[in-house]
């Protein structure tokens, strides 16, 4: 094997050849001779070359080149626009695969047990509750023909089921199947969190205690009619029928559950579960027997375990169809990108956030100290620092709820440093509190930042906060016990879009227990509790709203919480995803979307626009 080198200059006419093999052999001979000489001289190994060596500069140059390469790669920008657009269909199209995700694992697909956002998102494609919530939170007939009719005395709800519904195993939906499913859901051994929403159903306590095998208040009137009998009036009862807990499970699946097996996912929903690779993805296929056919994606893929930083990259690469988790920097990017901005939706979530003060522990047993805290927090400054990711809100009910006060109502908590100092003086602390207060924080980075803001704000009126970050488990356990935690950050979201879903658990004296309190501020105001009870019995909507507005006013003024914000839910969709709607109750509601396929490269659209 020879390498031939052509002469580099015209004067050298003859090519010269070199055999690499010979060169190596020659070098090896030289090396052996050199080693022999060293051995004779008593050296085991030739010393490393020292002195000026031009090769060292090779290292420097190579390193510089590598750094340049890294820098250049870093400068390479990802596209600041979507990679794909839709085909341009006006009418809804069936087909395609819609891909969404979450950052953690789906716990369960058992509708009677699931109570976390992620599991509910996963099972809502397979199951349907008896009633539904519309996009604005209004009750709508789900599996029922119409909303339930109420008797004169307000104690009986009659629900007529649709007759064209079949389970995914082919069994028709009837009242017996619904009753069997409700019985399982309400059985004590199922351990469903739903029981608390149905406590007023007649005979439930006896059933749960095992004294009887039927619930007197759930009656099958005919093949498609159910009657619910309550022991006392509860205006919020129909909302409970809209929770996913009431989703009927196919009788064949219930039989397997009764035999001790896990419940196979067989409901009446628009999709059937095709496969679930735990921790990776759930794949759904459209249910051909669905009672309300519509143009929708043929498949849905729900990816589990996609961390936020990966979700953003995959969404921008066109591998995901929706994005809902943003860092402040990413949120700014999507808001400011002209191409992405139309794809981004921002809506107020029905969640209230604030600092909870333990009304049984000093100094927060004094209402003036609590008010001082509520007035000392500069919410606007905090909002700006958090990338405008929430709306400042100084009252217990989020803005979409009946009974929430106008933002400029005098009772609404707001930033007023002078008034905060005055309240503290009224409490007997004109120079501030003489001792520090512990502020407990959960594990999130947001909680740490929020804690530091509160610390800075309260220092201005002489309240020293000591931040105490603890694990989520400890946080939950300790804050629910009496006399343990003086102050902590908390949020609370609705179960259903009714004021009772927020005010009852958080502020009713009934919510206080020594070990597992839901009213974690341990705030007791009998007048308020009576108001809330009265609202449950009041069937007139206007009158009920007045009651809840009065309750909101009392709570804002008594300040068991320093209310801070309602979060903004930001969601971005790919341009080919159509009919996206914000749902006030469910955070992942994709049943109505359709895909405008085939998706086209974004540049084509740009070119078409230029041509036009």
């Amino acid at each position: 094997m020879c390498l031939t080198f052509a002469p580099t200059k015209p004067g050298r006419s003859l090519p010269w050849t070199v055999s690499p093999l010979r060169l190596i052999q020659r070098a090896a001979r030289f090396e052996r001779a050199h080693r022999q000489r060293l051995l004779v001289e008593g050296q085991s190994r030739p010393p490393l070359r020292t002195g000026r060596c031009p090769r060292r500069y090779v290292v420097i140059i190579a390193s510089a080149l590598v750094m340049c390469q890294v820098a250049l790669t870093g400068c390479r920008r990802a596209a600041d626009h979507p990679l794909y657009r839709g085909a341009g269909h006006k009418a809804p199209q069936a087909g395609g695969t819609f891909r969404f995700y979450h950052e953690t694992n789906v716990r369960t697909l058992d509708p009677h047990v699931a109570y976390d956002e992620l599991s509910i998102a996963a099972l809502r494609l397979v199951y349907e509750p008896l009633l539904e919530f519309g996009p604005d939170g209004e009750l709508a007939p789900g599996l029922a023909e119409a909303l339930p009719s109420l008797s004169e005395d307000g104690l009986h709800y009659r629900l007529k089921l649709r007759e064209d519904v079949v389970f995914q195993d082919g069994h028709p939906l009837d009242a017996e199947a619904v009753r069997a499913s409700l019985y399982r859901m309400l059985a004590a051994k199922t351990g469903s969190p739903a029981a608390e929403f149905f406590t007023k159903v007649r005979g439930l306590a006896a059933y749960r205690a095992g004294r009887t095998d039927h619930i007197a208040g759930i009656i099958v009137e005919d093949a498609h009619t159910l009657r619910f009998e309550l022991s006392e009036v509860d205006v919020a009862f129909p909302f409970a029928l809209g929770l996913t807990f009431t989703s009927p499970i196919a009788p064949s699946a219930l039989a397997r559950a009764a035999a001790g097996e896990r419940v196979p996912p067989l409901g009446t929903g628009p999709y059937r579960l095709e496969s679930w690779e735990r921790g990776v993805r759930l794949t759904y296929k459209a249910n051909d027997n669905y009672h309300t056919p519509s143009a929708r994606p043929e498949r849905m893929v729900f990816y589990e375990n996609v961390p936020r930083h990966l979700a953003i990259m995959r969404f921008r690469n066109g591998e995901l169809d929706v994005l809902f988790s943003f860092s402040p920097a990413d949120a700014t990017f999507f808001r400011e990108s002209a191409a992405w901005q139309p794809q981004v939706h921002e809506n107020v979530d029905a969640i209230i956030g604030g600092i909870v003060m333990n009304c049984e522990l000093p100094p927060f047993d004094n209402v003036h100290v609590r008010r001082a805290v509520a007035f000392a927090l500069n919410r606007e400054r905090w909002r700006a620092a958090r990338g405008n990711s929430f709306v400042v809100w100084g009252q217990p009910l989020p803005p979409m709820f009946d009974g929430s006060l106008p933002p400029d109502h005098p009772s609404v908590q707001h930033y007023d440093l002078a008034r905060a100092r005055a309240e503290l003086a009224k409490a007997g602390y004109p120079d501030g509190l003489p001792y520090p207060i512990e502020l407990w924080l959960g594990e999130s980075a947001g909680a740490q930042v929020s804690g530091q803001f509160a610390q800075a704000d309260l220092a201005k009126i002489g309240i020293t906060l000591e931040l105490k970050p603890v694990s989520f488990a400890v946080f939950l356990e300790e804050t629910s016990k009496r006399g343990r935690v003086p102050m902590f950050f908390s949020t609370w979201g609705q179960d259903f879009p009714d004021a009772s879903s927020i005010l009852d658990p958080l502020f009713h004296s009934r919510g206080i227990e020594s070990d597992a309190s839901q009213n974690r501020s341990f705030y007791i105001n009998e007048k308020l509790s009576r108001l809330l009870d009265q609202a449950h019995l009041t069937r007139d909507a206007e009158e009920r709203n007045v009651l809840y507005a009065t309750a909101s006013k009392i709570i804002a003024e008594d300040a068991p919480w320093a209310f801070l914000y309602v979060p903004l839910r930001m969601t971005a969709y790919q341009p080919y995803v159509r009919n996206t709607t914000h749902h006030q109750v469910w955070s992942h509601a994709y049943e109505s979307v359709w895909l405008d396929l085939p998706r086209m490269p974004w540049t084509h659209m740009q070119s078409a626009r230029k041509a036009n």
Partner: protein
Amino acid sequence: MVEHLIRRTAYALFIVWASVSCVFFLMYAVGDPASATLGERASAEQLASFRAQHGLDRPVLSQYLTYIGVQPCHVRAGYCGLLQGHLGDSLRLDATIASVFVERIPRTALLGAMATTVEVFVGVGLGLWAGATRRRWVDSSLLTFAYLGISIPTFVAGLIALDQLAFRLGLFPVGGYGETPLEHIKHALLPSLVLGLLGSATYLRLVRSETRDLLADEFSRMLRSLGVSQRRLTLRYLPRLAVLPVITLLGLQLPALVGGAVITETIFGWPGLGRLAVEAVYNLDAPLVLAIVLVASVAVQAGNLLADIALQLLDPRVLRS
């Protein structure tokens, strides 16, 4: 040899038992698993029912004895502890721990195997080169690489690699796991390269210094005097001796691999045991945490045992000593 193995196995079992026992009592000292599982909306009745259902309302010692398998089970007849081969049920996931492990362990094993392969081949290869070369610039460059590998944390290198190589250049998939076996390997490439290249630094330094010592050894001098070339010496005779400490290190590196998986899997969204461990600890899913500790400690002990055996097979002097 057999006696040595029996002694080592007994010692390994003791270590596994001690680790699991320590973590058991620590987990129950940290907080209430019922509150962590059911969340802030759980009523006192639900919490009580959950505790009764999972035996959490019993004294901790009783729970421990049931868990180990020397006391009858509280949910079914007979015994249902570790000694009977039961890992239990996850408190949070609606599944048995065994079924979760069947899915998760192969994923972590795949990532670990690929990362270890890169680690060992790159580390040993470059270490031999750095040790045997007489070119200072090669040696300096390789040492610089080794120091960089040791200094850069996995999460920094992982995030940079994801952003630059996967997201911007599109050379690798952006995290995830894929659907087919081939896709699993494709998705594991980037995390295993990052883990492997960073991890190879330790091997590189070890093999380099070992190679240098061996080259100065009488053994090498004799081979040279017999006319064996430097290349042949480096490629044929030295590796077998130079990798002896690598095998020991490989056994010791297993815990680091499991520990590293926690970070790597979180960064790359790899649905393996590491990510599961993070969530289990976060949610105080005590049975799951204990099972992961059990698997990890068994893996570590098995790794050390295998390293012992391999060392003795490769170097009979170890057994004689």
